[in-house]
């Protein structure tokens, strides 16, 4: 079972709420996915409104809301947003996203580290979205992050695990859960992330923009379960076993 802070998760598929063609369809897909941690952009919801359309459709006992700070450009704005969210949504969980670059939405490592230090002092459960940078992940862990969320490839790109070599290092070194976020375009990408030992994946675009988001949500659910099962069953090492046609060491027998 996966534990983050004081919560135990049976599903290792985390999901997002953006880009769906309607809140009703979003709700159906998220329920079908079995996801227990669902991220929602603070800028999309009216935090003062208990009847906010998006929030109403996420009102399920198994779903924990993970507010995210998408849109903020620095640590100061992120900390301010986090405090508003904690008060309005009554959760101290936060997906910390600081991307000053609005084109590729690349996360700012310096501001993210600064904000993590500050928010940890303020008692938040912080899940920072960052590059697949192993050193940064260790620094965030030391600063008090509850998990790290390195990207597989640029957000919304559906390009899969372009950063796999670095993800493997992060997974090997991390003492907090590693959630592969961003770029997971197909269930096979999610399965691969789980096979290499990721603790969970976060998927949004690939489900929201699919022809049938509900069916795609189920496909991801199965892929994540399969990938995790394969990891736990201990995959055989990939071996490149060459049989040389002219042995290089045969001469030793002749000596």
């Amino acid at each position: 079972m996966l534990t983050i802070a004081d919560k135990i998760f049976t599903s290792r598929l985390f999901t997002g709420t953006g880009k769906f063609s309607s809140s009703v369809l979003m709700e159906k897909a998220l329920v079908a996915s079995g996801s227990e941690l669902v991220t929602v952009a603070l800028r999309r919801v009216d935090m003062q409104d208990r009847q906010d359309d998006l929030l109403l459709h996420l009102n399920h006992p198994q779903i924990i809301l993970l507010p995210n700070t998408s849109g903020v450009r620095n640590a100061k704005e992120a900390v301010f947003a986090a405090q508003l969210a904690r008060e309005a949504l009554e959760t101290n969980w936060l997906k910390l996203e600081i991307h000053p670059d609005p084109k590729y939405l690349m996360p700012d490592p310096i501001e993210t580290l600064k904000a993590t230090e500050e928010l940890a002092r303020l008692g938040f459960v912080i899940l920072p979205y960052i590059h697949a940078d192993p050193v940064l992940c260790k620094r965030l862990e030391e600063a008090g992050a509850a998990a790290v969320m390195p990207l597989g490839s640029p957000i919304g790109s559906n390009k899969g695990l372009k950063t796999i070599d670095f993800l493997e290092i992060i997974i090997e070194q991390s003492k907090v859960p590693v959630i592969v976020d961003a770029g997971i375009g197909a269930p096979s990408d999610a399965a691969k992330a789980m096979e290499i030992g990721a603790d969970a994946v976060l998927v949004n675009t690939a489900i929201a923009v699919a022809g049938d988001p509900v069916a795609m949500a189920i496909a991801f659910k199965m892929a994540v379960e399969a990938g995790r099962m394969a990891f736990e069953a201990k995959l055989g090492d990939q071996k490149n076993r060459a049989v040389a046609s002219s042995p290089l060491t045969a001469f030793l027998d002749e000596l």
Partner: protein
Amino acid sequence: MSFKEIFEQHKWDEVKESIYQKTAADVENALFKQKRTLEDFKALISPAAAAYLEPMAQLSQKVTQKRFGKTVQMYIPLYLSNECTNICTYCGFSLDNKVRRRTLSEDEILQEIAVIKALGYDHVLLVTGEANQTVHVDYFKKVLKLIRPHFSMISLEVQPLDTDEYEELIPLGLNTVLVYQETYHQEDYRKHHPKGKKSNFNYRLETPDRLGKAGIHKMGLGVLIGLEDWRTDSFFTALHLDYLEKTYWQTRYSLSFPRLRPFSGGLEPKVEMTDRELVQLICAYRIMNEEVELSLSTRESEKFRDHCIALGITSISAGSKTNPGGYAVAPESLEQFEISDERTPAQIAQLIRSKGYEPVWKDWDRFM
């Protein structure tokens, strides 16, 4: 360094000629590659690309959904003033249009806001003419303070300002500034803007640089289609965008492509752009730039807007009035242009849903 230096390296006639010389092979090459250059953009807006409209539309829809999902943002203009000291040949607010002018007071603005809020809006675009004696930075500051508590996102489409003036407005909640060059054809620009501060082509051309330096969150670019060859003007828009994205990399960008509309005392378009050509331009912008926001106003007809939602447009207005006081206090005041699509915001939201998209009323917050 500003865009002016890059602009001056490109001669209008040469650009125009190179666009018109693009071939079907250039278009195919531009369509099927991964990373595109401005030369590819020329091919996509060229006459040769007209034969590829359907594949362009398919690609545009696909990449738009990848980035923006199945959502369309809703915004509405709020005209604050139609006072203007410029003469512009194509605009209802032009100084030589002898009609009574008005600038809304704080009390009148609140009445307008009440109507707009009741329509469901949370993103507002403030619009004025250029009247520096009465509608100046202090007026904008007053207005921003007044309306900030009511909206999550505030945009401004007014006269170009200096960098330090933008720096004063941004902390008061100014998120986005739209500044359209109207045309990048310098001589033609002079013809259409014979009098007033707007006649200074270079000051307008360098406005996005001043906005970028001031650290604006988002800026909108565009030309008024109908003044000059739209293909060449659109190339310069794309060139401008390319420069700005690299220089002010923390800013978001949006593009508009307003076609000249009738107004009282109006000018006939010099260059017509067909619906088919506007679709080509929308798709070309999207294929060239997957991240830029593309906005469509009520200038366009109902049927055209109905179908453009799925083609690459990411934000849309509805129920717009283009005159100060148009929503509540002075419905009969002078309007900037006649709108074409007169359906209500609720009807447009329903239309968006029927196309399989979600209308998004709020996508920003005051804390940002």
